């Protein structure tokens, strides 16, 4: 089996195919601190791509309540348990988080889903450790979660006192998920038909419907369970990253690359999506003023979801600051403590870049900051805060300015009726 470099793990790993990297890679950052589970992203995706017969259970974009929720149910607990069974006590990280682009979270010393498969699965053709969720696990995108429901047997009506459930004093957060368009996709690795491919121009992972025969190896292999089987066509389907928008070929885009539907619909402004430049070795090429590069590699506030699976996912999350750290370390790796520290005490540049989220539905390729005067210095929750009237300018693919964000101090206009009062 070929060896490929996984920069998130800080080491080489086994993968069924040689490494091939696109010139740019579809990637995104979600700020979990802002997500209130309004499900606008979920419905934007559903109403665009998966509204047809046979797709009822397909939620390419979903928001689940962690730690107890998941779609399909227990997807992460199940694959984590399988990895633990394959390598008892060995799924640990070594080293310490570093500053470089290669291995910024230390070195993962355990086994990925590709490596564990070689030792635990038979026959030899089984390439990825995974499992096929049951029908029941696919049935409910939010089972046992916190949605108000109707009384049993009463359809289409919410229980009028349904919100008065017992209140548990516990921590939880909302995890928004789409396909991570991984650099080493497990779905692609597992497909015996080679029906899944990664586009060389933007790294979007697509599933060729003409080639698929519905063996569901991709469904079994994807550790994030973002490949889904459609019974009435007998093929599998997955998130297509709204590629006509990302390409700029959708009529609405006017030729300028546009973010996906789930990104554009986000009312909590938690999402930013872009196309990052790739280096020859599969790391992100230095692109200092790309906002995603800044958040992942400079500010180091955005972390990959379950990097230990080994697929090198391209979805990154700013972790929730109130959640128990051991849980977050398991979910996002050892970079969590640094990410939260950097996020709660943001640098001047980070504050500016956070203002780029959801100000436009066009993909931002580059930003520029024009520094202005300091307008406030004080403290919040015991931490020092400084605000500046900086102007942040976002540029699109063609280098044209998409928008600029400035800060305006409020002006109080005295009403006419009290024009002369003090």
């Amino acid at each position, binding site marked *: 089996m070929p060896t490929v470099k996984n920069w998130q793990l800080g080491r080489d790993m086994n993968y069924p195919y040689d490494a091939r990297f696109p010139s740019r890679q579809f990637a995104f950052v979600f700020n979990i601190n802002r997500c209130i589970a309004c499900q606008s992203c979920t419905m934007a995706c559903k109403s665009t791509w998966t509204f047809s017969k046979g797709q009822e259970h397909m939620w390419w974009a979903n928001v689940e309540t962690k730690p107890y929720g998941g779609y399909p149910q227990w997807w992460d607990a199940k694959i984590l348990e399988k990895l633990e069974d394959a390598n008892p006590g060995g799924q640990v990280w070594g080293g310490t988080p570093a500053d470089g682009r290669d291995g910024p979270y230390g070195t993962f010393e355990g086994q990925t889903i590709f490596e564990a498969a070689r030792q635990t699965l038979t026959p030899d053709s089984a390439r990825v450790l995974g499992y096929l969720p049951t029908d029941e696990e696919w049935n409910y995108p939010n089972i046992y979660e916190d949605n108000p*429901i109707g009384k049993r047997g009463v359809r289409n009506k919410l229980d009028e006192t349904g919100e008065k459930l017992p209140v548990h*004093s516990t*921590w939880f957060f909302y995890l928004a998920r789409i396909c991570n368009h991984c650099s080493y996709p497990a779905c692609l690795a597992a497909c015996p038909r080679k029906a899944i491919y990664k586009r060389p121009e933007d790294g979007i992972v697509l599933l060729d419907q003409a080639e698929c025969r519905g063996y569901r190896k991709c469904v079994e292999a994807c550790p994030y369970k973002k490949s889904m089987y459609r019974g009435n066509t007998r093929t599998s389907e997955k998130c297509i990253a709204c590629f006509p928008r990302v390409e700029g070929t959708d009529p609405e885009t006017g030729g300028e690359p546009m973010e996906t539907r789930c990104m554009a619909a986000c009312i909590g402004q938690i999402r930013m999506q872009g196309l990052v430049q790739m280096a020859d070795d599969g790391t992100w090429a230095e692109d200092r003023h790309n906002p995603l590069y800044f958040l992942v590699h400079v500010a180091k506030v955005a972390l990959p979801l379950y990097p230990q699976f080994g697929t090198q996912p391209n979805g990154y999350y700013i972790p929730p600051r109130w959640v128990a750290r051991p849980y977050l370390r398991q979910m996002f790796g050892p970079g969590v403590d640094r990410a939260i520290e950097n996020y709660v005490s943001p640098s001047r540049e980070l504050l500016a870049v956070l203002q780029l989220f959801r100000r436009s539905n066009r993909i931002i390729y580059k930003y520029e900051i024009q520094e202005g005067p300091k307008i406030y210095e004080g403290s*919040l929750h015991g931490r020092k805060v400084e605000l500046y009237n900086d102007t942040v300018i976002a540029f699109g693919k063609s280098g044209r300015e998409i928008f*600029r964000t400035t*800060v305006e101090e409020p002006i109080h206009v005295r009403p006419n009726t009290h024009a002369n009062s003090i």
Partner: protein
Amino acid sequence: MPFDEPEIDDPQELVGVELPGDETVTREMAEAFADEFAQIGYTRPQILGLFRRAEYTGAHQAWTLLGEEAIGRLVDESLAVWGRVRYVVTDGVADGAVPEPLRLFRPRS
């Protein structure tokens, strides 16, 4: 939607799983929501409205546990910092057109 009763003999049922948490965690979560929505330009009534609505369960649970007064104080603390400014977004325009700034959410009075 869980219309069926839990099956006690189902080994996958969550039974008695403890997730440690206390008022401090709830307060931190509420602080995070207040800070974030103050930063993106929401006003005091808008942020409090978010906490009051049962549909936004995370925020609403904090409101239930801590009470309106405590949540109001957290929102005021956040707005004392982030509410000082208003973000103005101006779309890039074609040559010759006049840019029209969009003042986000927060009204003048």
